[in-house]
């Protein structure tokens, strides 16, 4: 992940639902917000000037409350929803310029999707579900069966090949959804609130499965969620949407340490800071070794506190993965880290 290569580039993407969208688009571009637009022209503002670069091999989380446009945004990437205006580049091709035939090809080869409510085919067996993406490409049955069995085993559902989705529990169904998406070997994985419908224990289990798979496969994953803990756990980058506008897009640590406005601050207010803030976010940069113990830059605040409580007066040394000293942490750093930051932007009215 040293060299960041941009795989998907979203430029000035707008989506307006309703009639006479071209007029509404003008109004939005002139600064009208969602509520005013609804009142004036009876159109619903879905996405408002979204610009986002998604790096290859990373998990890009898109977060927001319901109605913030996150599900709309992810559906633009494979054009399940057509935009009102804007561009989405995959490498050098603008996805929005593809003809129907090219789009079908593109969906078959480059992107696959996991859905919140699983959306499995109830009349097909697990094997047929997982092989669906391959089967519709015209690949022979032997080949897709072999690949599907491999993925079914990989998500831990060995022996369930001939079951129907209705016979499995929610967590198992979503494993099928995941296997189905992985079976086509598409490099981009779209996950629309994929784990939101599962109960907490199973959700956490599925997150671990996803992270395991990602360590091995290095896919580019766009992950939609409304759950900040989930976003912090799996996201390499987190973009926050509100009323169709992108508010902040940065690394998870940065979101917690430097929320851009009150909306983001509100979002992060309830998380357990001690469990998510890492050493590198609170250290004072230095390259000389301090008197206390040495810790990794990814260690979370809670663990640092454990270590420091033995000798509170001695600052700990922070080293990065290569073992180089990059900073130190003393008690005031810890206190500063625990404190909720004030938003940096101005207050948002309304």
């Amino acid at each position: 992940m040293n060299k960041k290569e941009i795989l998907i580039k979203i430029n000035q993407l707008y989506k307006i639902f309703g009639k006479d969208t071209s007029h509404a688009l003008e109004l939005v571009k002139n600064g009208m917000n969602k509520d005013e637009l609804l009142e004036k022209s009876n159109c619903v503002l879905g996405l408002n000037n979204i610009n986002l670069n998604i790096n290859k091999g990373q998990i890009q989380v898109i977060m927001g409350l319901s109605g913030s446009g996150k599900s709309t945004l992810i559906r633009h990437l494979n054009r399940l929803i057509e935009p009102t205006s804007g561009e989405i580049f995959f490498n050098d091709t603008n996805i929005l310029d593809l003809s129907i035939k090219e789009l079908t090809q593109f969906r078959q080869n480059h992107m696959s999707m996991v859905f919140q409510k699983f959306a499995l085919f109830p009349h097909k067996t697990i094997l047929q579900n997982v092989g669906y993406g391959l089967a519709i490409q015209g690949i022979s049955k032997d080949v897709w069966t072999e690949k599907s069995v491999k993925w079914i085993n990989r998500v831990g559902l060995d022996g369930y090949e001939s079951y129907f989705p209705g016979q499995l529990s929610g967590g198992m169904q979503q494993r099928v959804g995941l296997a189905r998406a992985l079976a086509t070997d598409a490099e981009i994985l779209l996950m629309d609130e994929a784990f939101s419908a599962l109960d907490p224990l199973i959700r956490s289990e599925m997150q671990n499965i996803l992270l395991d798979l990602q360590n091995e496969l290095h896919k580019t994953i766009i992950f939609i969620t409304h759950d900040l803990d989930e976003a912090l756990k799996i996201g390499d980058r987190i973009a926050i949407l509100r009323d169709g506008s992108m508010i902040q897009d940065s690394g998870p640590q940065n979101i917690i340490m430097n929320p851009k406005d009150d909306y983001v601050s509100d979002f992060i207010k309830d998380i357990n800071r001690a469990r998510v803030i890492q050493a590198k976010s609170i250290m004072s940069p230095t390259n000389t070794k301090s008197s206390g113990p040495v810790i990794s830059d990814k260690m979370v605040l809670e663990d640092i506190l454990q270590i420091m409580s033995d000798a509170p007066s001695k600052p700990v040394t922070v080293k990065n993965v290569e073992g180089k000293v990059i900073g130190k942490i003393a008690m005031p750093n810890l206190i500063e880290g625990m404190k909720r930051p004030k938003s940096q932007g101005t207050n948002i009215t309304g």
Partner: protein
Amino acid sequence: MDWFFEFPEMERSGLRDFKKAIDFAFRDFSRSYGEGIESFFEPLLMFLVWFEKLFIHTPWPIIIAGILLLAWFGSRSIPILIGTLVSFLLIGYFGMWEDTMSTLAIILVSTILCISIGIPTGIAMARSDRVQTIVVPVLDVMQTIPSFVYLIPVVMLLGIGKVPGLIAVCIYAIPPVVRLTNLGIRLVDKAVLEAADSFGANYWQKLFGVQMPLALPTIFAGINQTIMMALAMVVIASMIGVKGLGLPVLRAVSNQYLALGLMNGLAIVVLAIIFDRVTQKFGLRMQKYRKEIKD
């Protein structure tokens, strides 16, 4: 204030001329095109006659064996099988075998006709809202107009015989299969279709791989209703020359033969029940995947 209490009607003479004009126009139409239309339906007639002959000339044990086989394939139920066997034996014993075979032939042909026209129409309706807004009122007319009324133009055009009877039966029986095909496809879960889309399925792959299989139980309910309505129409169709169980019923009504009417009427009922149970069981078996949910 006359107009307030008496509805302002059209002039009598005007109304008469108006009706006459329609009658003459249609008569001219049927005189000039009637033969052409008749020859257009020629293959249908041959098809129907062929089936009728096949059913009547095949020895009865073979027919019963065939029907039992179909019933078993459809329902996999011993009680239904026994019921079917007893019913057909009784029908034969009471001397209604030939009429029953004629009725079976026309039901079979009209069901095939209804399915082959109805399902594609339903698919087209499900695909396009515009087609739906055009077809729905047509179906409403077909279902509600008294059947005697549309018998008039059909008879004027094609005379009395098997084909007009078949057409009359189809007009009456086709709406359920069209409606329920449309409904079944439209009711398929949007999320599942979205999933198919996201994997790059094209229209036909979605239709035959996802929509039709999931709509099949609903479509089958439509086919079931179509068969039932075709059976109900058999008596009326006998008025315009369709042979079968309807004819004796008609004769019984005009001559007040209670026993004759009752027996043939009951034979129609028995056929209806057998068809209904077998097709319903078949429809249920098709949605087995829905029923085995553990939890």
